[in-house]
């Protein structure tokens, strides 16, 4: 346990003691308690904002973290949701549609996590089935036809693992998106807003610009999964999180992503409006740059960018 965690436990113990003392003696020490509570808040904020990768994992998964809905409401005007993959069904784990972004018509596609249990069940905790990816692809091809830029938000623990998902070709659905996005003839921006879980995240992440919120994570496998496979102990997830290099800063250094978007102190959940505004501003900036390119140049640059990721010697 870190020294801050220890202090936090101490403060909680003291508050409890003082409360007991006040009850039994009738002496008012509420001023004392207020001071301790302030210190408690400060420590919690420090723990959350500490740069440790595991802390970022916790912030990225925070239940009050802004989700697709906050971005739709804060970034788009006249948003219209479009449903279904035209093959099997509509997958609630991915939301897609059209709307105005700074006055420009765009196609918006996002993984959809709920903020409460009921919505999470409806949205399968943001874990898509193949039809979710096929809906996304349908909307992207539509964007290409009508020359609209595509904005993708990534926020998923991963593609769903289940019988139906396999029967309907989860692998093929993700693969098809990677292939088609690599030369889609319209600008694409992807932003990791929360969890970027493996192939299920990448299926919305082949883009001209890939951005990440400061405390979001993007990983080939969950820290828990990595810990159980490579360290043979899923409780060592915090240790695995360090090895995986899943933070925005690490991934910028590895050239997997192109830019980092700042978050309010302690994490995006502390100020949803500020977070959404920051994301909107950064998307505007990058969209302006890529929309200025000739379409063939844009697609060529995207290909070269994807081709350059990787570290090896020869």
């Amino acid at each position, binding site marked *: 346990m870190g020294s801050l965690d220890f202090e936090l436990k101490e403060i909680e113990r003291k508050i409890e003691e003082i409360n007991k003392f006040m009850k039994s003696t009738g002496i008012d020490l509420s001023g004392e308690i207020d001071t301790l509570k302030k210190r408690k808040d400060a420590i919690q904020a420090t723990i959350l904002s500490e740069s440790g990768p595991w802390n970022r994992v916790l912030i990225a998964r925070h239940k009050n973290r802004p989700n697709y809905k906050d971005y739709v409401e804060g970034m788009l005007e006249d948003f219209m949701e479009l449903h279904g993959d035209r093959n099997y069904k509509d997958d609630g784990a991915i939301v897609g549609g059209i709307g105005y972004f700074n006055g420009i018509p765009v196609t918006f596609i996002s993984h959809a996590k709920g903020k409460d249990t009921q919505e999470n069940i409806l949205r399968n905790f943001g874990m898509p089935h193949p039809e979710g990816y096929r809906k996304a692809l349908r909307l992207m091809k539509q964007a290409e036809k009508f020359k609209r830029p595509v904005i993708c938000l990534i926020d998923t623990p991963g*593609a*769903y*693992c*289940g*019988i139906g*998902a*396999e*029967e*309907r*070709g*989860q*692998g*093929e659905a*993700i*693969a*098809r998106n*990677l*292939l*088609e*996005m*690599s*030369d889609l003839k319209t600008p694409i921006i992807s932003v990791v807003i929360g969890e970027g879980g*493996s*192939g299920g995240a*990448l*299926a919305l*992440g*082949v883009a001209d610009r890939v951005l990440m919120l400061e405390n979001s994570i*993007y*990983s*080939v*496998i969950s820290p828990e999964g*990595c810990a159980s*496979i*490579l360290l043979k102990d899923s409780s060592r997830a915090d240790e695995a999180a360090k*090895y*995986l*290099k*899943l933070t925005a800063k690490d*991934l910028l250094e*590895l050239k*997997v992503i192109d830019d980092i978007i700042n978050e309010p102190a302690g994490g995006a959940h502390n100020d949803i409006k500020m977070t959404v505004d920051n994301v909107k501003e950064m998307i505007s900036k990058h969209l302006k740059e890529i929309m200025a390119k000739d379409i063939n140049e844009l697609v060529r640059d995207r*290909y070269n960018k*994807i*081709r350059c*990721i*990787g*570290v*090896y*010697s*020869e």
Partner: protein
Amino acid sequence: MAWKDIFIKRKYATVIIPKESSVKVKDNLIEIENLPDIKDISEVLEKEYDKDIFSKCPSCGEMLINLDLYENLNVCTKCNYHFRLDSKQRIEITFDEGSAEYFDENMRTLNPLNYPNYKEKISNLQKELEINEGVITGKAKINDKDICFGAMDWKFIMGSMGSVVGEKLARMFEKAIELKLPVVVFSVSGGARMQEGMLSLSQMAKVSAAVKNHSNHGLLYISVLTDPTTGGVTASFASLGDIIIAEPKATIGFAGKRVIEQTIRQKLPEDFQSAEFLLEHGFVDMIVNRKEMKDTLYKILTLHSGGDFNGES
């Protein structure tokens, strides 16, 4: 199979002799006395056998003589179980003798995440297997038809895809564009290479982009799925062939069976994620026995010779 058959079949086969038996040499002939009365030697062999001489079929349990197995392309002579082939064996049985030329043989894996023990793991495997990474790429001939190929290797960290595997495959597709050649990839992989983190995941996008580029040039890509093809490889180039072939009974899927069982809390049916299951659900074009693989590939290549293929018309 009886004792006698083994000796008749292989002049020099060695067999574990049960303790109660004795061996004598008489007039240049070996005589074994007190052989236990068993119809099938499998029982004896199962307990203790020389792996240089025998292999046990994991499907039907038959004890197979390695030389027979080798001559039968590593397919069980009794039940048609397809044993896994490594990349060198695959190249040997698929392409015309001596026709293979290799690409990017000097590309080497680094440890970009400073993942503990990764470097050592890689260098130990390189020494042991005498290959550099989980895929061999190059150019070869199938009954005189030129193709570019990738052959993955399950022995190398389960054919997982790190930077080198992704880069070699992407370059091979690009080389095929330059040479105007079709591509055949034999996949076998557990998925992404965790030790390379997001760099590994990014290879899925990289190779898929190269497949699209190759496809945009009107060129043919045949994807052959072998046991096992799962995870990030299934979710990228392995599922993107113009024609997708699977070997019988190969395990092919996105998520691992154990992960699914944990998620849905029930046991999965035996044939779940088998090649046959994928054929039924429409994700592979055909299942082809290893013995017929080369001829099948050749037929497909020939059927695609109508246009600019291979510079002929």
